């Protein structure tokens, strides 16, 4: 746990896409810092969450359409998922090459608190962080057309 918690920021580079990384204390900060100044989409999901299982393939489809989509997935299931099961579902959903994380350990309150002190773990949840750092939170299933529009807007060169 301590080794993972101290993992350097390079872990979240695109070079590590496809690897399911352990989300421990400090991981949230490393994700945010690694994407600072650029738009990023962070999607929280879980295998025991019915709406998540419906939604994740839609993310996979969008990811296929927009390979440069800055998508980070975090498996934050209330019932701790086995990493191999999570990886398998990510692969089936076409998200093997996204930046994928999974909550590590049973003390998930501590991990959630670093993300949002008021978040009590309901999923699916998606956070959109613009390149100006402005955060938008989507509770429940996200609309892929809206995500696509947001991403395109964020990529406009005139956006300040």
């Amino acid at each position: 746990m301590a080794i993972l918690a101290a993992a350097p920021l390079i872990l979240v580079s695109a070079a590590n896409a496809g690897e399911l990384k352990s989300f421990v204390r400090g991981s949230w900060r490393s994700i945010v810092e690694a994407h600072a100044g650029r738009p990023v989409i962070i999607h929280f999901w879980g295998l025991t969450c019915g709406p998540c299982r419906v939604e994740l393939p839609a993310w996979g489809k969008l990811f296929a359409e927009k390979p440069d989509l800055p998508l980070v997935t975090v498996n934050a299931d209330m019932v701790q998922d086995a990493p191999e099961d999570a990886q398998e579902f990510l692969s089936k959903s076409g998200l093997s090459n996204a930046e994928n994380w999974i909550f590590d350990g049973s003390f998930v309150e501590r991990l959630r608190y670093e993300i949002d002190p008021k978040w009590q773990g309901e999923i699916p949840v998606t956070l959109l962080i613009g390149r100006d750092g402005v955060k938008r939170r989507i509770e429940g299933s996200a609309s892929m057309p809206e995500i696509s529009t947001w991403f395109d807007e964020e990529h406009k060169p005139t956006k300040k």
Partner: protein
Amino acid sequence: MLWPVFIAALAVFAASDAALAEMSHEHHQARETCAGLSLACAGTVSPAFAPDGALWIAARVNNQIFVAKSVDHGRSFTQPVVITPNSVTLDRGADARPKILIDRGGRVIVAYATVRDEKRNGQLFYTRSTDGGKTFAPPQSITADIESQRFIAMAIDSDGSIFSAWIDKRNRAIAREKGENYAGAGLAFAWSRDHAVSFSDASIAHEGTCECCRIAVAFAGRGCPVLLFRNIFDTSVRDHAIMTFERPDKPGSVNRVSDDDWAIDACPHHGPSLAVARDGTYHAAWFTAGRIRKGLFYARSINGGRSFSEPVAIGDPDHAPGRPDLLGIDGKLYLAWKEFDGDHTSVMTMVSPDNGKHWSSAKAIATTTEDSDHPILERQGRHIFLSWQTQKEGYRLLNLKNPS
């Protein structure tokens, strides 16, 4: 004025904590690496006091549930007796926990939920012991239709009948076969009139409830259970509703507890708590992240649940207050919940001297810095106890009331 009572009670239990630490020497070990069938390895511990004052627990350790008894307020327990078969996968969701009841005859009744397939459909089982917890009958399914069930609630009526309610997806499956939409799940119930030898055929009391939150049960009178549950209003608003049975076999109308407007197509995994006081007042505590209000709330009803008072926010909204538990005794009402400040998880409590009209300020009565179970209030005679399992400290039983 009320808190010196709490402090005195905790001082009494300082010695208990020391005894527990000695008993549970393994408890600094991370639970996921615990191999033994011990209380120290339990992730979830459900308590119940027997009429003779003994404390019973049903504890989950990985995919096993064991039952044990304590006659010294949790300082020591009998050898654990496993009630689950081998190779079963238990429901380990945030709101899933075994239920344990001790009836007047000393029978120990336990119910629990399993995950029975890769699609995570659930099945509920119950068992009982008639020899003081030495042996348990082979677990039986609570209902013949095992499409999918979760979150069993059980309570003993004043005549000894056992009421059981749970989340049931049988009609959702039928609707989907017909190509029809069906949001959520059904609220099912059954009665046992033979001390948990068997349960009646299941009936559906209400359709379209949230499928991923525990439900709360209490009695408004003999044969009149009250259910508090997260309902689905419209198509996706997951706010709380309450139902009082008109007769044992006749569910009553569904009334909204609070218009929080939590429109979410997701799983809150965060169910409510309910108490019905001797004066007939209803008391509800629940978590919401709705558009109208967010956080932990309390409200009371003086008309049998037809309407509720304006919700009162509970706890520090910046510390994720949640997992409420309400318990009433002798006109007083106790409320416990959890908060987390980034380092410490605390069990907070408040007490109302007048059945919810007024409340004391909130106080932390126990803390931990590692993972922990939900706080549970249990009554033994005129005493109220907090039962709390934590990874670091092990099992704790704290007396909240020390009557003079």
